[in-house]
């Protein structure tokens, strides 16, 4: 079995396991849009090489070697998707699809540098449970794209290292805010829950908004 298919399958097991309970061959086939017979055969191969285990109930669990591969691929996927969507502005689903291809070829060095680049300034990365592959949302835009004075609604907050602080001051999905000030260098002041909050460019970039209907 070629290594792309193998990595994809292991990654799918990981994602589905994290989402709920261990998946069956059928779940995996549906998730990957593949034929169930092929998937079952591939699962057999992976079980034989000690990467995963087929449970009596038809469900699949990862063994440590498989877990390691799956986690690495999932991590690459996350970083690539974040970069494509949030830095290059690609639409979420397209970014996720593209990441599916790139994740198998990209070198360790590229991933490391990308990851540093994203951490260094943008402070964003996508936790697994919020991956667009599952949600398929048509990407809302960031604050930087609206003029001062617009009333907006928070669509989502991208993962950000001090996310809790944003939530605690009321920047939560669904909340409405007014963009009070936007400097040319990207810093913004927003009014939310009756107080004005100044945000750095990197923080503002993590807040996805849409126009209030």
């Amino acid at each position, binding site marked *: 079995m070629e290594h792309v298919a193998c990595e994809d399958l292991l990654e799918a097991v990981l994602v589905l396991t994290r989402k709920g309970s261990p998946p069956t061959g059928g779940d995996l086939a549906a998730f990957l849009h593949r034929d169930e017979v092929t998937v079952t055969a591939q699962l057999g191969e992976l079980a034989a090489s000690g990467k995963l285990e087929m449970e009596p109930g038809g469900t699949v669990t990862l063994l440590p070697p498989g877990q390691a591969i799956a986690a690495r691929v999932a991590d690459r996927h996350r970083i690539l998707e974040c970069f494509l969507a949030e830095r290059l502005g690609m639409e979420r689903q397209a970014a996720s699809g593209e990441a599916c291809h790139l994740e198998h070829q990209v070198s360790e060095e590229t991933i490391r540098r990308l990851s540093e680049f994203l951490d260094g300034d943008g402070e964003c990365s996508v936790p697994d449970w919020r991956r667009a592959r599952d949600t398929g949302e048509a990407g809302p835009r960031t604050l930087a794209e609206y003029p001062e004075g617009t009333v907006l609604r928070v669509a989502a907050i991208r993962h950000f290292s001090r996310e809790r602080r944003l*939530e605690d001051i009321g920047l939560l999905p669904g909340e409405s805010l007014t963009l009070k000030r936007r400097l040319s260098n990207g810093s913004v002041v927003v009014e939310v829950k009756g107080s004005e909050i100044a945000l750095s460019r990197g923080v503002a970039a993590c807040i996805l908004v849409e126009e209030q209907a």
Partner: protein
Amino acid sequence: MRFALLGNPNVGKSLIFNQLTGLGVEVSNYPGTTVELHRGATCVDREKVEIVDLPGLYSIDGDQEEEALARRILTAGDLDGAILVLNATNLERNLYLLLQVAETGIPLVVVVNMMDEAETAGLTLDLPALSGILGVEVLGTAAVSGRNTGQIIPVARARARPATVTVPYDTDIEAAIRTLGKELGAPRLAAIWALDGIGTDPVVGEAAGDLAKEIEGSHRMSVHQILALNRYTLAKEIAGMVVGKASARPGIDLDRLLSREIPGIPILAGLLLGMLLVVFTVGSFLETIIVGLFQQYLIDPIPSLGLPPLAEEIVVSVMVGLQAGFGIALPYILLFFLLLSLLEDSGYMTRAAFLADRAMHRGGMHGGAIIPLVMAFGCNVPALLAARNLGTKRERTIAAFLITLVPCSARTVIIAGMVAAFVGIPAALSIYGMVLLIISATGILLSRVTPGKQVGMILEVAPLRRPKADLVLAKSSHRVMDFLRLALPLLVVGSVVLGILDYYGILAAFEDFLAPLFVGILGLPSYAVTALLFGILRKEMAIGTLAVLAGTADLSAVMTELQIYIFAVMSVLFVPCISTMAVLSRENGWKIALLITVFTVLLGIGIGAMINLAFT
């Protein structure tokens, strides 16, 4: 009995604390003024009531240090209750914290402060209704005018009780809370905290971690986000029932000017420059008067007393020390603190932070760092403490370096009292320009080499207010008294020690030893080295000591302009004072303190030597 003052940042907790205890902790109009616990006490009905002032909080379930501290205090069990201070003009956001604190089951009294501002804004608050909903006593206050603050302690003593309000959480969360309760016997609060990832029991924590993962998977939201949404829903509902509609707020919006790049940035630069110029000009005017009076009435008559030589040396030294303290230091320090207090109380600092954010990122920090950096102009010590508000260790380390380079008011005394007075104001300003360059370069360099992550700014913009004269005066006189208490004895004792050392010729031997460096490379008179060293005790002592050693406060008589300039530059850059070093090693570790000391010594000598080379 013991009560803690809790609430969002900048709602007036410290002002209330000061009024209740008669102490003078820092009160300023920006979030994050208080960074440490302050304890004070008051007597009510012959009973001692201890009051603890906490740093402001937006929540108690975050991962920040002060939030963890608040959790510990609230659950430690040695409080008789919490006094929750809310901002009347922003009830919903403030209620969010209240709902969390209510969950801990601690007895509560709610203080709705800033009632005066709510009234000006046309808000009506139905406090009895709020009291009914929360199930605790509610007091409306306006701490600026002292309205109703006297009621707080009596009410807290007699009627603090646990709130009856509870947040109805999402059904999955409630189910998880029940599961944790049934299977592991975790109480509601412990279960919520464990799900939120801040629990203290590892067993409950592990079970909660699994449950949380499930919930996050099905909700596509973090547990913290779900909890926050549920709390805010209730907070909004309560605020809706309590707050009457505001009439449109009239008046001019100063932020149209202040928070735009143009004219905001020129205004910012103008303000800082204006402050310096006022300090220089008004300060030197006062200095001349006071120094003249000292000279005429206290110092000149000394020889005519016919004292024995050693005694005369000592008396003169003490007088010159006092002359330096009162005449040179006091006018500048007083002015500086007055202006700084005005700036702090106006709410302007958060605007400056916003404008400076991008520039600060270049130096590895964010806009919030402007607040400690501006405070450092007053004194480096509180500035180092204020730097705690910067999120990460990396930022605190960089900020510590830069703060110690900022000329504090004591160094301003040297710049103003020596350079502005004897060389000229442009020369004095050039020192600030030079320091600014050094600070920028150091910041850029440090942001490259300091390990750690860069974080962004999330800063609540403080409302613009006309500073209250009594508060500004109280704060600046407090700081000036600190100066007098700490510095004057040092100045006097230092002068006496100097006088004696000088009399027995010990100083001369020491100076001869270091003469090659100071005279050769820096072109300074040999006694300047002693003055620089005394400056480590307190920066303004450098100038006092110099005056004692030169035998006069009129330095232009004994030093050339270049020498004065080099001496000032060196004492500005050279080693932070002892108190700064002590706080540095406490806050940032002795390694950083040592590093900064070595760095500044090299910097001072290097720049001093360069100037000397360039101009001779």
